């Protein structure tokens, strides 16, 4: 994104308004980041709201009852009503609480949930920062939540909170290992930590045949995908691993003592973390933005990019010392009327649609499982992690590495080439 901001500043803005274009690079980038942060926060809020509603409606459907269906058509405004209600509620802290920790914990959890979105691609080019160590970054910042959870469990001086917090801390910390190793399987196959590049590799074969999850691409990645998803369920405390907030025994677990808006932060962070896990699984295993028919919109080799179009549209020469060049502004806006501008945009939009649709399908499976599987005990949770997932994920990493080192095995490629 930094390159694009740099281009916009020096090749577009500088021609529309020379004094603005001459601002220091850092100032312009700062403005761009602040403008860019808004849609991400909004996206996270929309995901959280949509899924608080979606989860209750799906739960209602599965249990043969209505979900929320009173506020707005079919109840879609319910999360908005909940948000306003939570804003207007009292923010109580128990008398024996450790106040600084108590007040900081929800903030830390919320910010920790927002940070992975920086490296998460939404489409091929729509990514805030396509960092070289993307996988590592997302895993690292997912883990920040644990600190907030331990603080939230310990600070209110409430026994339910403490039990829930300790359980969740143990569970999240333990499942971090197999989750990391499962992603490592993909990294070993792809040879890069960049989420965008990992996704890029899964294109071709009509946009569906080269996904990492297919056994003909790598059977180890298939196994790793399912283990990653199970680990993701545990790390986001979803059923059957939801014992940190088991309402029948621990009231609400680590957020028992939180009310009002601070409670809402935990709630939003949970849904954001679920989305992050599902989006990472989608990008690494399910082909990310690849899907059928998208290749038809792919720009031809040598076709002008949006940057080229913009650069060409603002070529009116100006007198020195001009403050604002209207001709160049109209030129830049005229790009909006061109198919050459909308075609790559549609290409990206379709990619974003595929990525988000696949992630939402995984989210749906998470919700579905909650009403299907019974909750398990903490010793079973840890057993599952250390004695089942850990050895198998190590096996996956080694297998994938062996596949990369010793063969270039890809059954699909082999079958396709056999036909020729």
């Amino acid at each position, binding site marked *: 994104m930094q390159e694009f901001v740099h281009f916009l500043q020096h090749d577009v803005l500088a021609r529309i308004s020379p004094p603005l274009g001459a601002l220091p690079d850092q100032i312009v980038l700062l403005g761009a980041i602040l403008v860019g942060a808004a849609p991400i926060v909004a996206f996270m809020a929309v995901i959280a709201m949509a899924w608080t509603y979606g989860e209750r409606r799906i739960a209602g459907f599965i249990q043969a009852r209505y979900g929320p269906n009173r506020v707005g058509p079919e109840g879609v405004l319910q999360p908005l009503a909940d948000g306003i209600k939570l804003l207007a509620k009292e*923010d109580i802290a128990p008398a024996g609480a450790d106040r600084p920790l108590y007040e900081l914990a929800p903030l830390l959890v919320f910010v920790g949930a927002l940070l992975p979105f920086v490296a998460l691609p939404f489409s091929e080019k729509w990514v*805030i920062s396509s960092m070289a160590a993307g996988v590592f970054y997302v895993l690292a910042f997912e883990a920040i939540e644990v600190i907030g959870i331990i603080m939230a469990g310990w600070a209110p001086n409430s026994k339910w909170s403490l039990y829930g917090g300790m359980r969740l801390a143990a569970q999240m910390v333990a499942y971090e290992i197999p989750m990391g190793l499962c992603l490592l399987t993909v990294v070993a196959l792809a*040879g890069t930590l960049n989420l965008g590049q990992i996704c890029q590799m899964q294109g071709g074969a009509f946009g569906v045949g080269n996904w990492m999850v297919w056994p003909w691409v790598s059977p180890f990645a298939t196994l790793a995908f399912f283990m990653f998803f199970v680990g993701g369920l545990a790390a986001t405390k979803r059923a059957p691993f939801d014992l940190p907030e088991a309402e029948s025994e621990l009231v609400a677990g680590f957020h028992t003592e939180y009310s009002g*808006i601070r409670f809402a932060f935990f709630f939003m962070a949970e849904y954001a973390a679920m989305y992050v896990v599902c989006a990472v699984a989608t990008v690494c295993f399910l082909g990310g933005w690849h899907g059928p028919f998208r290749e038809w919109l792919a720009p031809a080799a040598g076709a002008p990019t949006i940057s080229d179009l913009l650069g060409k549209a603002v070529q009116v020469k100006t007198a020195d010392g001009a403050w604002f060049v209207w001709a160049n502004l109209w030129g830049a806006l005229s790009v909006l009327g061109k198919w050459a501008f909308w075609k790559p945009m549609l290409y990206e939009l379709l990619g974003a649609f595929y990525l988000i649709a696949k992630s939402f399908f995984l989210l749906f499976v998470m919700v579905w499982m909650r009403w299907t599987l019974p909750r398990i005990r903490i010793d079973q949770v840890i057993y599952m992690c*250390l004695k089942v997932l850990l*050895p198998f994920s190590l096996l996956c990493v080694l297998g994938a*590495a062996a596949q990369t080192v010793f063969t270039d095995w890809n059954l699909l490629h082999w079958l396709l080439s056999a036909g020729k």
Partner: protein
Amino acid sequence: MQTVWPLFVYLAAAAAVPAGMIMVSFVLGARHSDRATGEPYESGIVSTGSARLRFPIHFYLVAMFFVIFDLEAVFLFAWAVAVRELGWAGFAEALVFIGVLVAALAYLWRLGALDWGPKPFARLSHSRHKDS
């Protein structure tokens, strides 16, 4: 290629949103103080003692396993990126490295450090003896 400071700007922006929401809630929210307002919720039972309890050792063991095995994963990350370039020599080294850790895992397993809660199999064989 890239600088780190935009990340911190984003961090500040991300922290400003909940801070703003808390301020709105501070203005809109109710405030009251009753006899039991400051008490922790314990399902209607009057709370006794502090919640600064001692916890079973297992939770701390899990934290230690995390340090051991996640550090392993960190080393493996560096290797996994370059698997193809390192070839069979790198693979053999990683095999030895993972082998040592699998041995450690097997040792912990035999030692019973991974066992939580009741031991179902031990109890089962004991009761069988009694019955027969």
